[in-house]
């Protein structure tokens, strides 16, 4: 279900998270904040990777689920809800919304699902902006307190990394389980999958809802990280940027979202010296990347590793006839 050895993939992801945690001790608050942003977006990208990369369903609604999670957390924490409870609720709420919206939307598949979810994101933005009695409208919800004892920048990063670790292990487990196998089966050949007893609609819906739930978890971390919630970050642009993260990292690869989110968060930083032109360069880099390695950076790295291994004379070049 996972290209490469599953254990090694999990170990790599966890080692990366640990390295980020250690790195934060030599960074200034800005670096720590960026790493937190990386961890938070990675959670949403992992969710989208389940939906898109594994189950093959193009969803542009991930921003909405991030928004729902963020608003749920921002609204409930002042009422004394502990962070853990808001996190669980955000995840559960988005899982439920995923089922609710997914059920009719998955009557259609492929690019039509992309259209419906695109429309959904646009509508959700309007609701967040217009229903000020609930969301605070454009003025948003400010001064969101971080949960004790994770109030400092570094402590909150640790919380983000903790959640990311849990999500990583859970996703790893899911993908190794028969569910992960079923997701891939319905991405690759839904008709054959059905003939093998795979409940195509059920699993598609689940992949969409689990992806949505991780969007909610992301939002639930986003609100106390930024400490301010308003509608514009949850517009279509976020869905597109999460989509870019998944595809640039490597759609359907376990490590893809981690790498993709890193690129999305850091590339603008690297390109900052370009000043006004950096988005131009950023877009060009993305297009080039898509053209040169459609299986993303992780796929590219994998191919480089393969090539290097083949160079070793001691090892069999190929296990069998290709």
């Amino acid at each position, binding site marked *: *279900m996972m*290209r490469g050895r599953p254990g090694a993939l999990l170990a790599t992801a966890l080692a990366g998270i640990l390295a980020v945690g250690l790195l934060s001790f030599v960074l200034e608050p800005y670096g720590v904040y960026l790493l937190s942003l990386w961890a938070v977006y990675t959670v949403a990208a992992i969710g989208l990777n389940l939906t898109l990369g594994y189950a093959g369903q193009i969803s542009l609604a991930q921003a909405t689920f991030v928004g729902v999670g963020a608003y749920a957390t921002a609204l409930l924490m002042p009422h004394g809800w502990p962070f853990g409870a808001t996190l669980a609720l955000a995840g559960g709420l988005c899982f439920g919304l995923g089922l609710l919206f997914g059920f009719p939307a998955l009557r259609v598949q492929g690019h039509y699902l992309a259209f419906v979810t695109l429309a959904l994101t646009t509508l959700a933005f309007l609701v967040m902006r217009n229903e000020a009695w609930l969301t605070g409208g454009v003025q948003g919800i400010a001064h969101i307190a971080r949960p004790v004892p994770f109030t400092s920048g570094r402590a909150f990063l640790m919380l983000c990394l903790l959640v990311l670790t849990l999500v990583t292990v859970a996703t790893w487990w*899911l993908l*190794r*389980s*028969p*569910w992960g*196998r*079923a997701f*891939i*089966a319905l991405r*690759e*050949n839904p*008709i*054959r*999958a*059905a*003939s*093998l*007893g*795979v*409940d*195509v609609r*059920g699993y598609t819906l689940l992949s969409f809802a689990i992806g949505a739930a991780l969007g909610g978890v992301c939002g639930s971390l986003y609100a106390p990280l930024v400490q301010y919630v308003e509608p514009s970050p949850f517009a279509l642009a976020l869905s597109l940027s999460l989509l870019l993260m998944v595809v640039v990292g490597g759609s*359907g690869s376990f490590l893809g979202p981690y790498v993709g989110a890193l690129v999305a968060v850091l590339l603008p930083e690297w390109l900052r010296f370009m000043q006004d032109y950096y988005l131009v360069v950023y877009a060009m880099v993305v297009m080039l990347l898509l053209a040169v390695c459609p299986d993303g950076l992780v796929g590219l790295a994998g191919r480089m590793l393969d090539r290097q291994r083949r160079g070793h004379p001691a090892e069999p070049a190929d*296990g*069998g*006839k*290709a």
Partner: protein
Amino acid sequence: MTPAGPTPGTPVLEARDLHRSFGGVRAVNGISFSVAPGEILGVIGPNGSGKSTLFNCLLGQLPPSAGQVLLDGEDVTGMTPAALNRRGVSRTFQLLQVFPQLSVRENLILAGQEHVGSRLGRLFGRPDAGLTAAAERMLHLFRLEALADLLAGGLSYGQQKLLDAAMAFMAGPRLVLLDEPAGGVNLTLLGAFRERLRAMNQEAGSTFVVIEHNMDFVMSLCTRVICIAEGQIIADGSPQAVRENPQVIEAYLGH
């Protein structure tokens, strides 16, 4: 997963006056037949005679315009392919239908996993759904051991064909519908393949329905053969009898 066993003598599969038309074309035009437990029924007929449409109607891929499909005496018309499969009906495909990004072993485990336990149980249970042993056995039976860890997409055509068939048997089906299993398989592999199918039929007591163009294959494998032409059954009997039926010869030649 099969519901309470059928009463003896009930056919495993029965088609009652099946019809299916596309626009004005009657692809299946009143077909009735039944398959007894343990039988290997061959379905032959010239191209465009309605064999594939019949298969698709039997398997829930296409809803029939009229008529009924009964499984163990129970009406299953209009049931989804997945639901039918969970009731013990599996199939192979005329065109290659394996999952190229999964390894051979993973393909086999996938073919069996939806028949084991509950869906939630599978999430929290063992990653292989307890099917590794069964998969190994199937790998052995179909001589795929050496390829077990390769991605199915990297296999040769014949190997994929074997895998496709092996997948159909993973869940211990009561009824298997094979759509041109011999197509594109080379002669050396073909004999072994036929033996495998025969062994599966005897060991597991599975019932087969086989669409096939390769007459030698059909004649040597099947216990009974029906011939379809223009959406209707024109002959039904032993392989020998059908082969010598003038109507059948006419249908093939006249085409």
